[in-house]
């Protein structure tokens, strides 16, 4: 089998204050997959995400991205390969204009001049935000800012796109537009979300994290229709939503 894009083995981590968030997580994500990472608040989802690009370092176990271990000496390349889109676009967009912000990652990789401009425009076109290139981020709507946040990461040509709560705070139209964009991207995706219909719509596979371990890993449809599993992991479908009425979504 090909080397997985994401290879997490026995990952355990405790915060300096003694709170242990992860107790041995195993997770493999292969090229081209779109995987939803589900779990209640406090399950360790964010902690896991911060290990994927070496912001946090494993207490025990290992993380590798396309075969490259996440270690101090590889961090620069790891952070190019793993693109994290954080939940609040105001945390992600810190430069005075959209252009400078999207250019930040590639510029750190040493891309300059016309090549940099081309990368920036291409990334913005992929999320349909090219016309806003010279606007300051705080003058954009929330949905537009989320899309620019995705572009800032796409500009780095990541091998895996990690999205933290991509649909949070979006109005239904922006939520659908973002789904269209994510579907159009030819990139491996790991999506942390509480939005179960969104997971079903976009990800054929779901991983449930609960209490710092992987509680389930399987087809999203099977996970969402397993009532006992759902209840045991504090997962609940929104009122009126029943995956069975849709049938198994072909991906």
């Amino acid at each position, binding site marked *: 089998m090909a080397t997985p894009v994401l290879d997490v083995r026995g990952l355990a981590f405790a915060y300096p204050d003694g709170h242990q968030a992860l107790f041995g997580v195993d997770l493999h994500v292969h090229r081209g997959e779109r995987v939803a990472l589900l779990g209640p608040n406090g399950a360790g989802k964010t902690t896991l995400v911060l290990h994927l690009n070496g912001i946090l370092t494993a207490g025990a176990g290992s993380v590798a991205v396309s075969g490259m271990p996440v270690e101090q000496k590889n961090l620069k390349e790891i952070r190019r390969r793993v693109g994290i889109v954080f939940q609040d676009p105001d945390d992600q967009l*810190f430069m005075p204009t959209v252009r400078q912000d999207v250019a930040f990652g590639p510029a750190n990789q040493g891309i300059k001049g016309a090549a940099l401009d081309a990368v920036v425009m291409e990334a913005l076109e992929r999320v349909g935000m090219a016309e806003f290139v010279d606007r300051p981020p705080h003058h954009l709507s929330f949905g537009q800012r989320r899309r620019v946040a995705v572009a800032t990461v796409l500009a780095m040509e990541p091998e895996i796109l990690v999205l933290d709560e991509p649909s949070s705070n979006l109005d239904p139209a922006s939520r659908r537009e973002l789904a269209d964009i994510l579907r159009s991207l030819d990139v491996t995706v790991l999506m942390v979300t509480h939005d179960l219909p969104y997971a079903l719509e976009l990800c054929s596979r779901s991983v449930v994290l609960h209490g710092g371990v992987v509680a389930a890993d399987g087809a999203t449809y099977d996970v969402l229709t397993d009532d006992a599993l759902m209840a045991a992991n504090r997962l609940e479908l929104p009122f009126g939503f029943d995956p069975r009425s849709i049938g198994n979504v072909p991906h």
Partner: protein
Amino acid sequence: MGAGHGHRLFFHGHSPIHRAPAHWKLVALLAFMLTVVATPHHWYAAFGGYALVLVTVILTSRVPLLYIARRMVVEVPFVFFAVLMPFIATGPRIDVLGVSVSEPGLVAAGGFLAKATLGVVASLTLAATTEPVDLLRGLRTLRMPDQIVSIMSFMIRYLDVVTDELRRMVTGMRSRGCDPRSPRHWPMLARTLGALFIRSYERGERVHLAMLSRGYDGRMP
């Protein structure tokens, strides 16, 4: 959130003043301010000349004078001190409208007020005719240290975010029957400001994480 694409001090326009390179404008402002500050208090004609130069620049920029005038409220604290000066300064006293005031104090206050006003109007003119982004670029062209330009750029970027956050917190206070304007509730307001500081600090940490995640190595690209 401001509408349009400018900052709230910026007045959109296409005059020669708007188009002039930001670093020239910065150097001009600095030179103007140094000249004003170095002028002795009693050279009244010189101050008239400075004012004339400023008004000419503003008229050329086609920024309405009222637009500048309204934003001059930032000067109010200085005016307050200037008004106090003739009363608390020592020296020979003269009568003005039947009130005995210190003569050197009065001259000093007049000069102080003139210099402050010229400075405020000149800065407002720069702000009204230059986008913040161009100002930062200008500062970089003038070889201002990178760290300082970065800090200023973050300040501009997050000013609206933090003011928005404060506005939401104050709305939250009001909704729960607390009036931030009444002195009785000032302790509450102070605690809110403390909480805002902590929130902003935590945001700073999250922004730093986001920067690291995109390959930041301590130098802005």
